[in-house]
């Protein structure tokens, strides 16, 4: 019984980090109405940035945030501005241009294989960082410290994004664009600038997730694919466009993955996650917690 409790807690912690990786995906969908297939690759870039920042300077892993957040924001901003904007301009009348999915898939392939070329296929870990393998003990229950920090980062980031969207002028403009881009344009909002900002923020949250993962997770070129597919599942589970839904969806997936192996072979849990995803897709495509315009 105690094991189930331990698995449950660790599942929720890891799941919240999954949710953090999916946060940008849901934000970008909410505003641009496109699924960014390159989001996992963005996470991979963020992980490499964090890894190298720490490995080369030897600072505390979480200090990498100072570098990773602005770099990733600019990266996402530039990607939307250079690659995705021309397609939006060409397909103005389409609400959910499929072409953008295809283009972001192209970006995914380029980024993943570029990092394979540059960094090689080997798995990298931050060997002697202060958080590695650190555990908190509560009686018989062991909780991983870096995952606990990841949980805190996920909740803090979600809260920060939520408050930004609710309380600031830019946040209001983003919400207006996501509701109705034509009407927002008529009110004097430059929709392409909003897209740039939303893409930048979404990418920056992937960077935060990368920093949270690096102390205990391997970094390798195709690491993004793992989180990409998981991210799609999480955002649909939680409701595309819903920030709280992304966190909750992530926790559901995390709990299935950690508690599942108690009763079945570990690899089968993956199939259960897919089955749950399809079930939600067919029964309630707006997701478990998603209201159509949640924010």
């Amino acid at each position: 019984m105690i094991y189930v409790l331990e698995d449950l807690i660790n599942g929720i912690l890891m799941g919240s980090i999954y949710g953090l990786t999916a946060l940008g995906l849901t934000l970008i969908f909410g505003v641009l109405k496109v699924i960014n297939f390159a989001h996992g690759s963005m996470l991979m870039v963020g992980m490499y940035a964090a890894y190298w920042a720490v490995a080369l300077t030897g600072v505390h892993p979480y200090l990498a945030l100072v570098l990773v957040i602005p770099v990733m924001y600019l990266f996402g901003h530039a990607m939307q501005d250079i690659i995705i904007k021309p397609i939006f301009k060409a397909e103005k009348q389409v609400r959910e241009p499929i072409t953008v999915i295809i283009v972001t898939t192209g970006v995914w392939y380029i980024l993943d294989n570029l990092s394979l070329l540059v960094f090689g296929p080997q798995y990298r870990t931050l060997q002697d960082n202060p958080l590695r393998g650190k555990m908190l003990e509560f009686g018989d229950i062991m909780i991983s410290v870096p995952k606990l920090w990841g949980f805190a980062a996920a909740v803090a980031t979600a809260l920060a994004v939520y408050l930004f969207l609710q309380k600031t002028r830019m946040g209001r403009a983003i919400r207006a664009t996501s509701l109705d881009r034509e009407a927002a344009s008529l009110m004097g909002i430059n929709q392409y600038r909003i897209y740039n900002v939303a893409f930048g923020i979404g990418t920056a949250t992937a960077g935060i997730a990368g920093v949270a993962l690096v102390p205990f997770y391997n970094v390798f070129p195709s690491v993004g694919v793992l989180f990409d597919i998981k991210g799609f599942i999480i955002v649909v589970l939680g409701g595309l466009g819903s920030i709280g839904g992304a966190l909750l969806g992530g926790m559901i997936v995390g709990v299935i993955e950690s508690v599942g192996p108690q009763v079945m072979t570990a690899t089968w849990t993956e199939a259960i996650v897919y089955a749950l995803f399809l079930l939600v897709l067919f029964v309630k495509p707006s997701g478990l917690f998603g209201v159509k315009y949640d924010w």
Partner: protein
Amino acid sequence: MTRQQFQALSLGLVAAVVLALPLFVRSATYLHILILLYLYAYLTTSWNLVGGFAGVLPLGHATFVGIGAYTSTILSLQYGVTPWIGMLAGGLLSVFVGVLIGLPTFKMRGAYFALATIAFAEGIRVMVENIDQLGPLKINGPRGLQIPPLNFGLANFMFPGKEPYYYIIVTMLAAVLAFTYFISRSKLGYYLSAGGEEPEAAMALGVNVARCKLIAMAMSSFLTALAGTFWAQFTLYIHPKSVISLDLSFEIAFIALIGGRGSIGGPILGAIVLRPVSDICRIYFGDKLPGLHLIIFGVVLILVMIFLPRGLQEPFSGLYNKVADRLTSTVPRQE
């Protein structure tokens, strides 16, 4: 020379070159590359039936390749059924699965449909990887199935050389092209492109869009599964990471999209342009620059989507029309 004659002449010329190629290409490596090129052209043309004409974005077609490969291989290894019958059985099973996937998903909007097909394909891959034995059927999980090259001959769909495979895949490709041409000129083809471009308008005119898409999906999954059997018999080794992989699903879609979805020549053009790129990269730069061909794919994909949204076939067919006009009549062609 009339235009019909010109078309027949160029078609005959292409057919003659394709059929005569093995007489000149003696190297097994290049023959192998050519066979893969035709195989991919076949796969993308089959994908195009639903991904191109029906205007949706299926990203899980490797499922059907896998079903075809596994069905015929299990039947021939365990029950001694010739792969030709297994091919048909795999196709029928694939239709069943394709309709099962299509029924709930075709109601969804663009992004959701793409995600649902990915989830289906990955779910099936995970299941195959986790099952060693399904009732009496030996699936062998992640280790895959090997076909021992013992009984050569047409009946066993197994040959010591590569030439027979070449002619089989050329025949299959020609058949699927003729079929696509026939569909594109049929009522169903018009319904499909109407439903793909303006679903509301098509439905208002009384077209049952969902049913047309389902028919297209059934045909596409059947044809894709046949290629799966060919793949198994050609490589004699299948495993979940090769025939049911996400990479294969994406590659099929990419090639068709770069070539030009919704046109007959587009997917083939895509395969002609991109397959050699990927093979040459793998042969000559595989050890030094791994993944180079995928970077090229990605760059070409983005450039084509931004600058030639209708695919590479657009400039090519424009060129063809110009040449044809110059050579055939002096009367300007009626558009």
